[in-house]
């Protein structure tokens, strides 16, 4: 087992569940069970949550450096990190993580759902509504976009285009 796999195993043992997520598309529902499990694991356990966050950051650093082409794995770990920041209450960081998650995997609808609720928690209700009322269109536009990174500007541009599609 290489070092990355070993670190992932260690994190999963620490969490009590797998970091591997089922990818969902437009025909599937988003399941909040993952957010439920994380809450049960870390509720009122800030120190343990910080430990898990650090572990996830280390894993992501190694995954990105290794350049092994497993973008889904990177995406899942950015999603996990984003969810942990969400529980911590750092919505600015969770937004960043979910955009990174979507950058590495354009196929997974999960990233858009997690992103929009982070945006709402941050207090930007208008953008939240723009996403949720145009979720399917935004998803398709990003999936077919030739760009690799979902930045804030790109996200706003996609949403703007989605709103104009009838």
């Amino acid at each position: 087992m290489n070092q990355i796999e070993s670190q992932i195993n260690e994190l999963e043992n620490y969490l009590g569940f797998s970091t591997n997520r089922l990818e969902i598309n437009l025909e599937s529902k988003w399941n909040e069970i993952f957010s439920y499990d994380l809450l049960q694991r870390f509720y009122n356990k800030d120190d343990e949550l910080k430990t898990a966050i650090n572990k996830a950051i280390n894993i992501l650093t190694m995954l990105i450096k290794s350049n092994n082409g497993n973008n889904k794995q990177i995406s899942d770990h950015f999603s996990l990190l984003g969810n942990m920041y969400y529980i911590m209450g750092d919505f600015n960081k969770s937004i960043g993580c979910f955009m990174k998650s979507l950058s590495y995997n354009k196929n997974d609808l999960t990233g858009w759902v997690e992103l929009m609720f982070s945006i709402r928690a941050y207090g930007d209700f208008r953008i939240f509504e723009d996403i949720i009322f145009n979720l399917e269109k935004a998803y398709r536009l990003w999936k077919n976009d030739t760009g690799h990174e979902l930045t804030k500007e790109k996200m706003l541009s996609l949403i703007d285009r989605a709103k104009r599609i009838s």
Partner: protein
Amino acid sequence: MALLVSNILNPYIPKKFGREYYDVNGSLQYPMFAAVALGVKPLFDDWVSADKYQEYADMCSKYGLEVVPDIIFIAPKDGKKGIIGGENITTTYAKGIKFGKNIDNGNVHVFVSKTRSMALEAKKFGWYPAVINNRATNKPYIDHIRFGRCLGFPNCCIDFFRKYNNWHLYSNPYETLKNTPAINRKARGSYYCNNFLMDHTYSLIHHLPCSYRCQETIMFAKKVEEKIMDVEPDFVEKAAEALKKPLLVFSERNFILFDGFMAKHDDNFSIDYKRCQYFQNTARPEDAIDFFDYVGEGNNIIISKGKIMIRDDNSALKTIEKKPEWFAINFD
């Protein structure tokens, strides 16, 4: 015998305090409106008919309250089948559209508080799952906790909710019952902790308590009662009467209310009643019981560990298999 089904609970028409609230929005959430207006509760959320939104906001302003709208909920034309995420809908579901002051159909979900900042903070975590483009999306689970704090729920009840409000695994009311000590010669629950009528006008709380004798909940509900007593004593009297009626509970929003008296006999319970009323969760028709007609024809039920026997005087009308999470409860 003729069916004894009736509307035991009638709307409450305030004589003085909050009459304007009733005139705009009926009485279903009247006590929570009063609790916030009287300074006991920091915030409540409500639904108001879209064509009355401005009237509602103006009325709240007179009571020193700010209103922040979320989206509009419109009654669906079709059932839940085919909705992506429909199986996770546990409460009344509706189609969601963006709020606009020129839209006059549907109901607006609103957050009401003494300050706009408090209402906006609650809105961040107060998403209610509407169906948008044939998709129902629940919020991240921790948002239930954060929203509960905004609403002023006791910490013990919030923590209990965190553990047990997963309807795939638990029946929250049944877990609450298990967490309620049985005290000799007393009813099982305190009427201050009776949450079952919280969307039916007569309730002093609007949260799921961790126990039907939760001391934090009782303290809060007593404050609500005391404050309302100063301004609208009739409501307090009617609420206490309604909240002390025994219930046969199937799940949180699925229960029978009895105008009667419950007694314990060893491990069994009996309810003698003159009238009964069935409250069902309209978003989950699959959970509705199919034997209420028999209850309506009878005047006595006996609840044992595995069975419910419905009787009319001395005749047995029907015997039902009882699910483990179903229970009878009385309040004092």
